[in-house]
């Protein structure tokens, strides 16, 4: 069977959920090999094997963590040549898309980003223009490089034999020009990452202020989800910009999206319209967000959301 390279996403050796999704997807396309880069890479092998990686290429070298994006692309370049995989799958995150970009240039191959599905013949499905149009495309030159959105596949374990191969990588000059001098952690909560989360609870202008977001956070925590925000809320400084959902913010596609006090402007819907279930709380029955709601309540979020939170906690 054809080899499918999956770039594993991990933080200090802990594998991200999106990687397990990609391995699951890769099994339907061929034989998955995982590629894992940076400090802690070696300790991911068991977790990757459990989700069906038949081979894990390990580039464990702290030097590779000193530069953003480019080292992972170099590792993939060095593997694609000798192995001629049928495709390379990468998570569609900010870093993932840039790694894919550099790889595609180096191997002069077609790149498809933000796929929500990849068929056995490597046809990729994308949802564009804010989810209003579904496009199917195929790479027509070189080794297909496809970035896949988190939450596109349900991860399923499939343990099997797995070989580990350690790589030694020498970075090109271009890849080592940018140097990370300091890493600053600003995220102090234990919530899942917005792009990966299975549940997202977002607040908008209706939340009324930074303080109002406590109500949103409480519901997110009860549901084990991430917090998101509309641009009106991030513009006002009520919530950090990293959490903005929409056209100029993050695109999310969780199992459940809860929008509270958000009107549903086209630019906001562009970032959440493909969520599996959408729940809306808004006091204006005419708000356009109700057009995409699976379940909506016309009401004041300050009474509906806390009641919902309490109910969720009670039923757990």
């Amino acid at each position: 069977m054809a080899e499918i390279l999956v770039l594993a996403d991990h933080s200090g050796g802990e594998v991200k959920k999106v990687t397990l999704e990609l391995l699951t997807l890769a099994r339907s396309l061929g034989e998955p090999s995982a590629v894992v880069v940076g400090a802690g890479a070696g300790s991911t092998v068991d977790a990757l094997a459990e989700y069906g990686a038949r081979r894990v290429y390990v580039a464990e070298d702290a030097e590779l963590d000193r530069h953003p994006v480019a080292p992972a692309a170099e590792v993939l370049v060095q593997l694609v040549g000798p192995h001629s995989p049928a495709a390379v799958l990468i998570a569609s995150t900010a870093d993932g898309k840039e790694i894919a970009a550099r790889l595609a240039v180096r191997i002069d191959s077609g790149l498809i980003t933000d796929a929500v599905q990849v068929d056995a013949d490597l046809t990729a499905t994308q949802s564009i223009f804010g989810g209003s149009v579904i496009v199917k495309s195929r790479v027509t030159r070189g080794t297909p490089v496809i970035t896949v959105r988190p939450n596109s596949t349900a991860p399923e374990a499939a343990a099997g034999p797995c070989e580990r191969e350690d790589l030694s990588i020498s970075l090109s000059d271009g890849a080592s020009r940018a140097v990370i001098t300091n890493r600053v952690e600003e995220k102090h909560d234990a919530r899942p990452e917005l792009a990966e989360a299975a549940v997202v609870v977002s607040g908008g202008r209706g939340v009324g202020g930074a303080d109002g977001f406590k109500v949103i956070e409480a519901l997110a925590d009860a549901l084990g989800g991430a917090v998101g925000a509309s641009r009106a809320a991030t513009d006002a400084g009520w919530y950090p910009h990293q959490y903005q959902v929409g056209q100029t913010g993050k695109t999310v596609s969780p199992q459940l999206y809860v929008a509270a006090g958000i009107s549903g402007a086209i630019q906001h819907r562009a970032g959440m319209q493909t969520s599996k279930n959408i729940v809306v709380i808004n006091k204006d029955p005419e708000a356009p967000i109700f057009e995409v709601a699976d379940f909506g309540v016309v009401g004041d979020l300050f009474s509906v959301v806390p009641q919902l939170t309490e109910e969720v906690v009670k039923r757990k």
Partner: protein
Amino acid sequence: MKIAVCVKQVPDTWAQKRLDPDDKTLDRESVDGVINELDEYAIEEALQLGEATSGEVVVITMGPDKASETVRKALAMGADSAIHVCDAALHGSDALATSLVLAKVIGDRGFDLAIFGSESTDARMSVIPAMVAERLGQAQLTFAGKVDVEGSTVKIRRIAEHGYDEVTASLPAVISVVEKINEPRYPSFKGIMAAKKKPVERLTLAEVGVPADQVGLAAVASAVESFESAPPRAAGTVVTDEGDGGVKIAEYLSSQKFI
């Protein structure tokens, strides 16, 4: 310092975008074009860095005739001159081809910095700055929420899920900036008048020096096989809160096995 700022004309985000059924590219003729909103932050950053170093800011765009409106806007904000690559052969170019053309223009003219918006609101791939950096062999300083230049060193904050990374490199470098890195200025009346007299160099593909067979629809490395409108979402249930709205939602979530 010599700074390039790359801008793109995109369909107005309020407009209904459609694909052309014949060649499956975005129909740009039938919608109003506006400057990609994220590029306004790139222009502002370029202008501020230019002002701080008594440097020169050159706008670069690749696109049809109509894209000259976007060039004018950038000049009205304060850029010194512009380069507009305009050639029928470019129609339908993918990111690989676009980055090839931009990298050639930037590389040939020896800029210290090339600044981009982190994404275009139409294609939303976020890959051009990384591709250009790779092609030029220059440092890639992308997703910047803050940029500082000191002598021949440039330092940015790369905004990430965990917070940010401080990333440093020597010039020349390729930068992309995120929304809200600054407050883009509005063109003043004086700026708008002055923009009319600023030099805009129009280049054909041949003048750029990229062979026509490496760009446009003929050179795409991936092809759209089909497209269709997404099926409308099935109409949902909407109820009015009568003191039990939260409980109603909880019941719905239970029925969907979320709780």
